[in-house]
């Protein structure tokens, strides 16, 4: 039996999961897609561990144990992308590379914190679903997310800006020139026919799409 590094296991499971989202995963495609060297021995080893199964047509499937593991890896990866893309303002292509580094660093507890911070996002920047964690299920049941989009505030509610979800530099500049930047308090004062927020003593009208992409820390009314 070969030695399998955790990185190898992670990358193979990740590749199988991603492929399964689109179509059936074959050994050939897994070899193409995984960023590590995939040998027949490695696949066989994973089968031995009860993570994968390979059928006669060389199709690879995740077994329950492997699925559970892969779900966590994918969740970390896609949350990391979301974090880098939204909170740090990187482009989608850039987030991909950085997220690969990140996913290995994140511990389970931190992953949930980040998920909560981001408001339990359901899709990654590439529009692929992010598997739910305990925190998401819990939040859905009992808690309101701490970070919400600006359009979810009630009229008259104040909140602090957490981050913007936009790839357009010009939108960031426009918002910050009008005084809306991370850390700044704003108040939603109108929702229709356009969103209006108040920032300092300035009133700013926003179209729904812009309001939906401003994430704020929701502080319940005192």
């Amino acid at each position, binding site marked *: 039996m070969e030695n399998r590094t955790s990185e190898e296991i992670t990358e193979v499971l990740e590749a199988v999961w991603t492929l399964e989202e689109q179509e059936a995963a074959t050994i050939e495609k897994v070899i193409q897609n995984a960023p590590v060297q995939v040998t027949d021995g490695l696949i066989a080893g994973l089968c031995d561990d009860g993570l994968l199964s390979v059928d006669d047509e060389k199709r690879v499937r995740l077994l329950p144990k492997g699925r559970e593991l892969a779900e966590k890896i994918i969740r970390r990866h896609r949350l990391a992308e979301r974090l880098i893309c939204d909170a740090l*303002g990187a482009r989608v292509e850039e987030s991909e590379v950085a997220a690969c580094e990140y996913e290995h660093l994140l511990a389970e507890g931190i992953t949930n914190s980040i998920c909560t911070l981001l408001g339990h996002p359901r899709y990654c920047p590439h529009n692929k679903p992010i598997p739910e964690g305990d925190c998401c299920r819990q939040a859905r049941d009992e808690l309101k997310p701490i970070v919400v989009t600006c359009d979810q505030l009630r009229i008259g509610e104040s909140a602090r800006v957490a981050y913007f979800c936009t790839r*357009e*530099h*010009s*939108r*960031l*500049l*426009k*918002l*910050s*020139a*009008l*005084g809306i*930047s*991370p*850390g*700044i308090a704003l108040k939603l004062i*109108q929702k*229709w*026919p*356009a969103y*209006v927020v108040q920032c*300092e*003593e*300035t*009133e*700013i*009208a*926003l*179209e729904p*799409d*812009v309001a939906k992409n401003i994430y704020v820390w929701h502080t319940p009314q005192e």
Partner: protein
Amino acid sequence: MAVDNLLLSKKVILVGNPNVGKSVIFRLLTGSYVLVSNFPGTTVEVSRGRMQLGGINYEVIDTPGVNSLVPQSEDERVACEILLREKPDLIIQVADAKNMRRTLLVTSQLVEFGIPMVLVLNMIDEAEERGIEIDVEGLSDFFSIPVVETVAIYSRGRRQLLNAIQNTADPPDNPLAGYDAGSKFIASTRELAAPALLSIEWVAEGDRELALTIETSIGAKAFTQLRQWKERYRAAGHGGPAGEIAEIRGRLLDKSVALFKKKRESRFIEESSGSKRVWLGLLICGLLLFVWNEIGGLLRIRTPYSVILQMTTNWLDSSLGAGYFGAGLIRSLLLSKNPAGRFEYGLVLETIHFLLLIAPVIVPLGMLLSRSRAFVHELGILTRRASTGIPILLGVLVLLYEFVGYTGAQTLVGLIEKALFGEHLVPLLRSWMPSGFISDLIVGKYGIVSMGLTYAIGIVMPVVGTFFIAFGLLEDSGYLPRLSILSDRLMRLMGLNGKAVLPMVLGFGCVTMATMSTRILSSRRERLIAILLLALGIPCSAQLGVMLGIAAGFSQKAILTVIAVVASQLLLIGYLSSRLIHGKPSEFIFEIPPIRIPQFKNVALKTWYRVQWYLKEAVPLFLVGTLVLFSLDAAHVQGRSLLDWTQAAMAPLISGLLHLPAEAAGIFLLGFLRRDYGAAGLYDMARKGQLTGQQVVVSLVVITLFVPCLASFLVIIKEQGWKRALAITGFIVPFAIGVGAALSWVLRAFNIQFY
């Protein structure tokens, strides 16, 4: 620069966010010596003025409003260019004391220039009533610049400002250097020429023109250093420097937060609550009276207005009889009768119109606005909400109609066109001139004075003038941005956003001017759609006024039909073009300025500039148009004039398709020169009873949808290029005639009449 350069020894530049009162400060400093010109290559206006202080001459330059010196708009670019090119001796930053964080973002950019600088905290009274406390001394230390508090509209703080201008000679400290001394990034920019960080951002933004200006401003050597810095930065594997600089500025602003704090909730100062209640009561009564009069007029039932009007004219008839007072011109100005023997215009009837319709709303509104800050604040909220904003918008439109459509298009047109030109000037000129070619040319049927000048000065100018006054009032009051909010969703249907409502509204004043103002829209696609819609179906005020004048002779149904047909075509074409022209609407992020009391001087100046512009622009075209018609009429071929031949040639189209009289051909010819000129011709024909109700409706629809006037066509070429301008025209002409023909057919087929 018209001002004598040799006499000037110092140059002062005013910079600041939009709507902070820069122009009021500008006038406070310079008085009336103002020269307004467009910044080269743009439509952005820049004012220059002079002042004398302590024996020194100053040239004062007012720049367009900026939210940041990293330009996102034409206005901001121009402001940056001026700062770089003019090399001022002093920068005065005018600020809205209510919005300090935004102010200090600009301050942190301005101090980079290393030019002596004064910070003016204007509207300090409004900041106080909103509970904002500003540590003026702390602020002054923070940037090492003098800070002056003012309320410019009441001249408060003027002397302190003048003192500061005289005594400020030292450049400000750049607090960035001090606070971020340890930062490697800041250290690496130290060798760069001022404004170092801004230059980096300009170059990083890829703004080539601005980069060129920086090069000439800081010199080729310093510019090479800047480029080398950028190369090194990139070689070190960093992304864009813009993000890093934004972060540094953000940190600096966070440090200044302690200097201004909102200590309590807003408390607005009231003159006295008793008088507010009285005026509020009067306003409500005035509004009720207004609604009664307007709806009554629509339903043709008795209203206070119609009753008093009737009483007055009866009394005038019986007491004055045929020989009423005064003579000649004065009599025609005060009162006049139409051929049917009814009083139709004149200052007496206008007084009743004003006192009963306009004044009961406007006077209490003005009193409340000037007396109660709380009312101003509340009005600002009511006008932007859909539930209250839309009724208010309707009210504003009806008031606009009463002012432009009645006072302008009926009273003033009656006074100038009919009384002054028709009854006095033209007959006088005729009596001086022996009949013949010269007389025909000047006061004949297609005479330069009797037609060209009468149309331009007599019919169109009063309408344009009153519209510009009304538009100026709305503009200055801060109402127009609220219109953008209300209309954003409608505009989105047409591939535009709420911002586009501004050129559209201006289009009701002058389509040419509006076509130029489409530059405020951010994408090429939006500009194209807006220009197409402006050219297609937005009637300018001159045309609109004339149209209202024509329709006044027929039932309300006539004008409503015209509006419905044109509006539906606008929506249809807007919707289709938003589908056909590739792209999506640009984002709508828009500052809503507070409602303010319009400043009389501002409105007067703006109206004057616009009327002047109109005169220079339109009158020559009117004269050329008249000359063309005159020559067509005078040149005879085979016993018929060329005009007859043209009419004969267009007859199948005009009489066949549209079922209009053949003379209408001449009017559509005029329409090519200016749509309002064409409409004025229709007005003439309708008044002489040459058109039936159906024909009026059809011809008004066609002339509204018809090609843009020559001037706006030229501007479209300038904005969009030859090909697109021709494509737009090539689409509009057949489309207008097609819609006209279809409408004509429907009206005849269903025998719909307008009396």
